[in-house]
């Protein structure tokens, strides 16, 4: 999945290595070797520029957002040529390993609310997580909080029926905060382990819609609010992460459709912007296709 990023990073390392082996600037009396230079940015200017431009273009091609690309370039510039791999590894680790959260711990019922823009796969992801929790012998109730989009309730209901999980729903146009509230009350009464709250896909730039979402959160007081992002998203991934983070507040991220993503850039961009852990990757259309995210695995795949 992340083969393309790997080749980007190995190429920049090779390029730096190649340049550091060559003798530098003619003006110096004794031919010195760049390997003696302490950091990459001391390379001959034109060479450095070329290497970094190439890197920038390839990172961008692989869907890494512009702001993150700039930062990775800085990291490389300030790294010692020989330790480039190590420095990059540390940087990526810093980006990808936010403080972990444990969605399996907490007072019953544990409430998880899903937010994100339209069409990223919130409902499908919610159903996948419900199915995985079920496998862990947890009792779950789902809240059909998207009361806006046509057939959103039928959609989550189809999952609920397939998985034989209780669903709390109201009618279209009703208050989604009330749906969430009822689901929580239901979970308390039946002593269930989890309440999974679906919400309507919302354009994060629309303040009125975000206020509605904020109300659902205020009423349901979720233990975890999870932002769902489509892996194919370009530079907007950063804006989505930022605005949902600011206006709603999130504890973790799930990236969907990772099976369709050859580039992997969104993973890095979103992790960087939110500073929150990526919990799962959606990797297919079946319920089982929700993989726990492991930063070390990803870094191994990239470097």
């Amino acid at each position, binding site marked *: 999945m992340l083969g393309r990023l790997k080749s980007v990073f190995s190429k920049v390392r090779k390029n730096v290595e190649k340049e550091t082996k060559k003798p530098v600037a003619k003006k110096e009396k004794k031919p010195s070797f760049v390997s003696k230079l302490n950091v990459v940015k001391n390379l001959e200017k034109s060479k450095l520029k070329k290497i970094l431009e190439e890197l920038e273009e390839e990172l961008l091609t692989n869907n890494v957002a512009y702001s993150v690309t700039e930062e990775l370039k800085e990291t490389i510039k300030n790294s010692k040529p020989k330790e480039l791999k190590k420095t990059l590894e540390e940087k990526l680790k810093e980006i990808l390993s936010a403080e972990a959260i444990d969605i399996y711990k907490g007072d019953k019922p544990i409430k998880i609310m899903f937010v994100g823009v*339209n069409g990223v796969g919130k409902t499908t992801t919610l159903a996948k997580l419900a199915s995985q929790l079920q496998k862990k012998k947890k009792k779950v109730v789902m809240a059909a909080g998207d009361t806006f989009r*046509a*057939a959103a309730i039928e959609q989550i209901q189809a999952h609920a029926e397939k998985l034989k999980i209780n669903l709390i729903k109201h009618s279209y146009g009703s208050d989604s905060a009330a749906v969430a509230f009822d689901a929580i009350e239901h979970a308390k009464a039946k002593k269930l382990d989890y309440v999974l709250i679906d919400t309507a896909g919302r354009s994060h730039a629309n303040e009125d819609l975000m206020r509605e979402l904020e109300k659902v959160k205020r009423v349901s007081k979720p233990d975890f609010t999870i932002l769902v992002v489509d892996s194919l998203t370009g530079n907007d991934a950063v804006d989505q992460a930022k605005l949902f983070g600011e206006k709603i507040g999130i504890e973790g991220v799930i990236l969907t459709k990772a099976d369709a993503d050859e580039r992997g850039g969104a993973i890095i961009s979103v992790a960087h912007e939110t500073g929150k852990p990526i919990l799962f990757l959606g990797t297919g259309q079946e319920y089982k296709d929700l993989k726990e995210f492991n930063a070390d695995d990803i870094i191994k795949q990239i470097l």
Partner: protein
Amino acid sequence: MVLDKLSDSLKNALKKLTSGKVDKEAVAELCSEIKKSLISADVSIELARNIAKNIEKRALKEKVAGGLTAREHTVNIVYEELTNLLGKEFKEIPTETKPTKLMLVGLFGSGKTTTAGKLAKLYKKRGKKIALVQTDTWRPAAYAQLKQLADVLKIDFYGDPKERNPVKIYNAVKKDLEDYELVIIDTAGRDALNDELTKEIESIDKAVQAQTKLLVLSGDIGQAAQKTAESFHKAVGVTGVIVTKLDGTAKGGGALSAAAATKAKVNFIGVGEKLDALEEFKPKNFVSRILGMGDLETLLEKASEAIDQETAEKTAKNIMKGDISFTDLYNQMEALKKMGPLGQVANMIPGMGKMNIPKSQLKEQEENMKVWKYLMDSMTVHEKDNPSLMNESRIQRIVKGSGRAETEMRDLIKQYKQMKKMMKAFSGKSKKFARMQKLMGKKGMPKMPGMF
């Protein structure tokens, strides 16, 4: 809005071109800025590089036409290159054949079904007899979703929730569909265009033989857009593109480069979750808007939808005389409100886009307008037509009647006076205004009418 940041950085970069001559360095900087902003708007790297290169080459090589400043010269070239990219002229989807079949294809979550509903609403308004057909048997409740939309729109709907084979669904209703003028066919998506989906849409395509095949792409899709579009194009031969979710911060560049890659034009853009939030995509107008040149055509279209002819003429006449009343102010505010959020409208007014008015200020203005409306609702018709009547006792009565604060009433009067002054200034056209008009006219933009 789409390419918002591109718009901002373009405006900033263009500001640097102030000297009379086309400065080589400034142009190079501008082009590197253009490249950067195109890429951060998700335009494919290759495309962004080509556009920037072309602009640089042309700006330096081509002669500056008489009377134009270096900046206007460069803006023109940027304008032309960007419209080239986006497909120049807007072309209506042909709908003369009966039935015209329009098929929507795309990945999961790009917004196909919602768009099907939006298209149905748009063409129903234009008097077409329409059928909506659901062939998505994959996603749970896809059938119910389109059916609910069809019910709301009172449009005939075909599908079969029990059948798994999309081709069978279509063939079963094929005969019935011949009675319609426009048949809109929704299809299933997948995470990616895999073999399974390719086979499926190829077989639907064969059965349907649609004249128009529109690829629906999410406005926030990144560098994967081009490849996605190419593979859909290979499978069914895409005739056009619809870019959705452009009401947020989505950059739209991915979808735009996808359109360029398939040589298919962007026909529509989706700008909201409601069913009427679908706009025809007019490249020239769009580019004018992001370059801060305004988009008078769309503005006028919206204005003519929002205001009836008689009121418009009366208001225009009063404005020309520099003599407006509360009634005119009221009508204008009402019309403005119907035209959409103030920010969007402001971007369409030539010159306004360049001023970069902060969003919070526009929001505040929207709030103010609400209050002023309450106040004016408490005035008599006579008072509204003759603002000069306003005196202390009338003000007190209006404040009480509307339940607003006296300061708000004073604000309204102040606003009215300012507007009156501004209108007077406008009626004697400034030189700059005339030159902008010339530039616009040359680009095929409509001539500036007296109203604004």
